[in-house]
């Protein structure tokens, strides 16, 4: 029988450790490229629809990025990218899309109701809840501060 301490040492010795420098460089390059793709999409929209306001361009831009993130997740490419890029693929909005579509695909054999619709929010749920609560607090305080 192993003691608890010994076991913990054993686990920490053998746990897979991502090599620091390589993952940092991969995250930097992939994250930067995804942001550049977003900027490029925004610039193309601005070229096509010249009278569109900046706010609308930003909305279209993020919607298209979300769609692209979902599409590449459905094709199985985004998870391969995430394998190399880590944070570079999680933090952009495409990673948010990935965190919704990935469990939806994973659990679709459990049915539409409790598979796709419920499991979709395993990662996105906390984000939406924290976001809505934070925005409510900001609005609430802002209303009384004004």
């Amino acid at each position, binding site marked *: 029988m192993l003691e608890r301490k010994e076991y913990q040492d054993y686990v920490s010795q053998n746990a897979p450790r*991502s090599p*620091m420098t390589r*993952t*940092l460089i991969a995250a*930097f390059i*992939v*994250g*930067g490229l*995804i*942001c550049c793709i*977003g*900027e*490029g999409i*925004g610039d193309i929209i601005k070229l096509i629809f010249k009278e569109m306001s900046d706010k609308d361009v930003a*909305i279209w*831009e*993020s*919607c298209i990025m*979300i*769609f692209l993130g*979902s*599409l590449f997740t*459905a*094709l*199985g490419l985004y*998870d*391969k990218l995430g394998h190399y890029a*880590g*944070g*570079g693929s*999680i*933090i*952009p*909005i495409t990673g*948010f*899309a990935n965190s*919704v579509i990935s469990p*939806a*695909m*994973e659990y*679709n054999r459990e049915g*539409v109701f409790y*598979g*796709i619709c419920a499991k*979709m929010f395993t*990662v996105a749920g*906390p*984000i*939406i809840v*924290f*976001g*809505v609560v*934070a*925005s*409510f607090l*900001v*609005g*609430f305080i802002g*209303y009384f501060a*004004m």
Partner: protein
Amino acid sequence: MDIFLDYLKVFAVGGLVCLIGQILINKTQMTSARILVLYMLVGVVLEVSGAFEYMKEFAGSGVTIPIMGFGSNLAKGALEGAKTNGFLGAVTGGLSSVAAGLTTVIVCGFVFGLIAKSRSKKI
């Protein structure tokens, strides 16, 4: 040349944001859900403090494409709603400013969840 400099800024700032996230992942073993929530809350704080506007002016999509942009939109919508519509605006403003993105995510998730099979096991 000007446009090249713009894209360089976007690349550098966007990359840096993701690099900080990767350091957090390596050092603290945080799960992706926690990282995303943390970044979104950072976006809310930056927007409320007013720093986000300057960052957006400087780097454009380099700060709005990371999930910070989502948090900043929520906070901005709530504040603008409070200004124009009073208390009701403060309640509705946050979600309505991210409604387009959320709808896209949910519709895409439903459709792709129906038609696609998971391939994540093949890595």
